[in-house]
């Protein structure tokens, strides 16, 4: 791991998310535009909560690894876990629910998760193999470093 690569491994518990956020504030925030950072941070929080809730069924006996690579032109973020993979039908249609802001009764109360993650980043990919899942997020740097 060189100075542009950072890895955090933490227990699969909601209570560990503040540790992740402090780490992101320290490692990722300086590499992002201010507003973009909060979008990417929100995407990572969402992805981690999805892993804990859906992939690991809130079993605290696992670990999640987040790896950051700060490149000159882009940033890559890999999240790895050993839980149930994201179902293929969800991966095939990653998008935010459609709604009219004026139609209160039909506002969606769920289904934002992966769509929100995808909305926050420039690239998203997913791989599940031999019991390990990897969600990869890519973010372009507006001013190459």
């Amino acid at each position, binding site marked *: 791991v060189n100075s542009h690569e950072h890895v955090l491994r933490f227990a699969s518990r*909601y*209570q560990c*998310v*503040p540790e992740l*956020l402090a780490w992101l504030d320290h490692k990722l925030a300086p590499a992002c535009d*201010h*507003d973009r950072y*909060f*979008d990417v*941070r*929100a*995407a990572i*929080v*969402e992805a981690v*909560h999805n892993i*804990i*809730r859906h992939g690991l069924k809130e079993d605290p006996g696992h670990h999640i690894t987040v790896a950051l690579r700060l490149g000159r032109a882009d940033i890559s973020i890999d999240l790895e876990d050993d839980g149930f993979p994201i179902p293929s039908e969800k991966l095939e249609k990653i998008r*935010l629910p459609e*709604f009219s*802001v004026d139609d*209160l*009764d039909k*506002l*969606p*109360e*769920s*289904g*934002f*998760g992966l*769509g*929100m993650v995808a*909305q*926050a980043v420039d690239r998203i990919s997913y791989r599940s193999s031999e019991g390990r899942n990897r969600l990869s997020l890519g973010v372009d740097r507006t001013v190459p470093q």
Partner: protein
Amino acid sequence: VLNINDEADGITVVDLAEDNLTASNAGQFRSMLAETIQEGRLRLVIDLQGVSYVDSSGLGALVGILKRLGAKGDLVICAVGPAVMSVFKLTRMDKVFAIETTRQAAIERLSR
């Protein structure tokens, strides 16, 4: 999870006692606020001061409260920090919710 305070003009201000509104507490948040609405408090301010992260479960709980209030009530959210505002904007929910910068501004909006 919540501190609930009745103000003048039938306005109720709800503070989150935790720094997040997520899958870990959204269910409890939703049920406590549903009870609050059931008791007849229909003009709500939800103060997110001190809330540093929200996920889609927390957002869904807020949408659920807005729908439960429906046309018979009003909801204003205030003190939304940049991390939480990102979630609203990414999902276009910033166009759905009434959002004010401060608690006082939220109360004044409901008092009009």
